[in-house]
């Protein structure tokens, strides 16, 4: 037996390997990103034959896993919850068609949100796609659920979702495990066009069969302890009970233990869909009122049919938005208990006074910012310098932080940097206004969902400048390898894809490649490119702004280190730390001048080019 203080995503990876998952695909996104690298680690350590890939996007990941599963293998794909939107087309179809080998979809939710555009609840997507779903309450339980999910998926030939929330993914727990072994099931796709390529007539039949499966799975979920269970004493009635699942179920159990409230029964639904009707009815029958505490939407609450007995989001007892952190759950419980005429858990103010006090301290606002030396910062500086009045549609990645620099006006979803650029063009050109538009997008995002938008824009003759911020890596989510570099996650070589070739293939004629560290050159190139955009015989222009990520390529990103100092000429205008926002440039409150923080400075030398007073010099 080994024991590790495993990240929740590591526990999920362990569960995948213990369940004999043979094919794993994923696209990175917080909080899911570490699952795949952890699978690589376990797989290598135990010399397993697992096939593991970073796919180009989530839909690609899903389809690859699905094909493996209908060939009889155990397959899984993992993604963040908004990634599941990208895979939604396949996802919705998959339960109708079903699978042979187990297919598990791991969709990681981000209540808060901490690092996402929405707080959407993947369990709702599961319900929409008629896919059974598990909602783990701890890393250890997530690991166990993965195995149960594979077994269920094979028993009923239906894909199964596991939905860990961020507090599973980025929790850590000490976990013991034994020997891992390869699953040697061979691919054996059996042709059956009425199933695998079914027409609408057969889809109806498949839908009916799926609904029948759901009744059976619901029956199974009625007794699926310890995931689904209550602690009612027989022939006892209660004035108040709690229905919960996932992370909140752990918090509720901790609270009741701490405050010794054995008088309040709990119905835990770790497998909430298909809804375990009988189990829920038993609980509802025994309680006068129930409070539903679930994250992040109203999945269980809607499925409980007696609304007059039910407290939760719909009754205003549980916040409709934000993460249900433990102190919030205690507040919710105290209020609901009070409303039902019962004693609260405590008279604690749950830190409210202290939070108020801290709010009044005017602590430094620590907004996330681009790293010192980040090539995106130099790119954004030059774009703004060249075309200050443009609209700047951007996208999702580290460079979203360009909003601090005033060069990110919109962020909608992966790929929208380009599609919104064409949308803005169309909106203005209808009024005969040639609005300057500069879209920015990272290399990984461009491969994920940039090309369709670019092809569409070229075809429909939209006009804008696209700057692809090519840092050779997917940085924000933890330095996953880029397609342009040809390195695959398990260390094997892939076939690198050239950005220039793809852009040209999308129909763009004007392509310039440059290094953003030379801001003078980039400013001129942006101006020249915009002239092409504006030329009646011109078209869309693309600049590939290429410089390796200073974190991902620590050794090579800055081949020529330039040590700098700030001279007496500094007049405290603050441009370098407030507008250019280099974290290594800090204001000395005593001298009222900028200083270089030697611990943070990576000696990129870009500040030599940007100081409005020329007060930065080489040492």
């Amino acid at each position: 037996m080994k024991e590790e203080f495993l990240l929740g995503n590591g526990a999920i990876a362990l569960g995948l390997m213990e369940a004999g998952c043979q094919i794993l695909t994923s696209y990175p996104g917080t909080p899911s990103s570490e699952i795949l690298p952890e699978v690589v680690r376990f797989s290598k350590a135990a010399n397993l034959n697992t096939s593991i890939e970073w796919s180009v996007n989530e839909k690609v990941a899903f389809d690859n896993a699905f094909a493996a599963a209908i060939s009889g293998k155990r397959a899984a794909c993992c993604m963040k919850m908004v990634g599941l939107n990208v895979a939604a087309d396949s996802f919705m179809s998959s339960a109708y068609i079903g699978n042979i080998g187990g297919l598990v979809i791991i969709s990681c939710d981000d209540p808060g949100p901490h690092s996402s555009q929405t707080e959407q609840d993947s369990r709702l997507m599961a319900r929409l796609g008629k896919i059974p779903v598990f909602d783990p309450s701890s890393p250890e339980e997530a690991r166990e659920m993965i195995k149960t999910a594979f077994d269920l998926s094979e028993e009923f030939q239906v894909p199964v979702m596991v939905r860990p929330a961020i507090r599973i993914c980025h929790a850590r727990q000490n976990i013991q495990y034994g020997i891992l072994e390869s699953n040697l099931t061979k691919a054996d796709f059996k042709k059956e066009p009425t199933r695998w390529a079914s027409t609408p007539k057969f889809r109806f039949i498949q839908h009916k069969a799926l609904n029948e499966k759901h009744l059976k799975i619901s029956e199974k979920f009625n007794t699926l302890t310890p995931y689904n269970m209550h602690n009612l004493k027989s022939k006892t009635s209660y004035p108040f009970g709690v229905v919960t699942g996932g992370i909140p179920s752990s918090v509720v159990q901790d609270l009741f233990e701490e405050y010794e409230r054995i008088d309040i029964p709990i119905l835990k639904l770790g497998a909430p869909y298909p809804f375990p009707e009988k189990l829920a009815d038993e609980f509802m029958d025994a309680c006068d009122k129930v409070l539903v505490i679930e994250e992040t939407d109203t999945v269980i609450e809607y499925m409980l049919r007696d609304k007059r007995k039910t407290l939760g989001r719909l009754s205003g007892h549980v916040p409709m938005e934000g993460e249900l952190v433990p102190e919030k759950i205690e507040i919710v419980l105290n209020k609901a208990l009070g409303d039902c005429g019962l004693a609260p858990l405590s008279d604690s103010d749950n830190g409210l006074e202290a939070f108020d006090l801290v709010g009044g301290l005017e602590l430094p606002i620590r907004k996330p910012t681009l790293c010192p030396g980040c090539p995106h910062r130099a790119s954004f500086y030059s774009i703004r310098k060249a075309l200050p009045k443009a609209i700047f549609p951007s996208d999702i990645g580290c460079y979203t932080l360009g909003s601090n620099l005033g060069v990110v006006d919109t962020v909608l979803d992966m790929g929208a940097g380009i599609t919104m650029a064409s949308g803005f063009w169309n909106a203005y050109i209808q009024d005969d206004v040639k609005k300057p538009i500069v879209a920015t997008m990272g290399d990984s995002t461009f491969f994920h969902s940039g090309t369709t938008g670019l092809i569409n824009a070229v075809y429909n003759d939209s006009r804008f400048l696209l700057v692809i911020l090519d840092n050779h890596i997917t940085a924000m989510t933890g330095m996953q390898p880029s397609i342009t570099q040809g390195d695959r996650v398990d260390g094997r070589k892939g076939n690198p894809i050239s950005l220039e070739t793809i852009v040209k293939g999308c129909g763009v004629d004007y392509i310039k490649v440059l290094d953003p560290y030379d801001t003078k050159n980039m400013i001129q190139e942006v101006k020249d490119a915009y002239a092409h955009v504006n030329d009646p015989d011109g078209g869309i222009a693309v600049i590939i702004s290429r410089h390796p990520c200073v974190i991902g390529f620590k050794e090579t990103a800055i081949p020529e280190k330039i040590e700098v100092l700030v001279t007496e000429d500094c007049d405290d205008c603050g441009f370098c730390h407030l507008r250019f926002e280099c974290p290594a440039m800090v204001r000395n409150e005593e001298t009222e001048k900028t200083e270089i923080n030697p611990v943070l400075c990576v000696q990129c030398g870009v500040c030599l080019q940007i100081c409005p007073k020329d007060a930065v010099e080489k040492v």
Partner: protein
Amino acid sequence: MKTINFVLSGLGGQGILFMTKILAMTAQNKGFNILGAETHGMAQRGGSVVSHLRIGDARSSLIRAGAADFLISLDESEAYRYLPYLKKGGMLFANAGARAFPDSKVVEYLDQMQIKPRAMEAGKTAMELGSPKSTNLAMVAFYSAFGVGPLDADDLRATVDSISPGPFKKMNLKIFDTCHEFGRKMNLED
């Protein structure tokens, strides 16, 4: 056993996760169950970073506001930011200058909550000893000197010894011993 709750706070890049690892490994070696909650993703880029560590048999990884036994912070502002997590009678350890600490605006609250704040210029000490990035280690050593909680100083030191790579071992242990000694003297004076 009763769950013991640590909140560790600081800034992105200060090595909060490394500090968590030292405490967690020590607890694991003693046979305790441990749960932790980390900050990843966007918040890591220069933002405020917090890590929760629970030693004992809790189920949920997050520590409730008002329930932490110890708050160890690598930055003075980040110590104040997470003050609401400390329970009545909890202990605060901050990387800060002893003279100006704590901020007069929080003194009354600390008194009322019977929270005793303790400060060490851990960043400065680590820099003077030649390893400015070891503030995290320095604060663990400082904490270890007060003999509170389920982890002994000797065990924490042994963990630092075992996880420090060869070239850094000597330096890390020197920082540990120096900061532990600083804390030990402060504890004696109390």
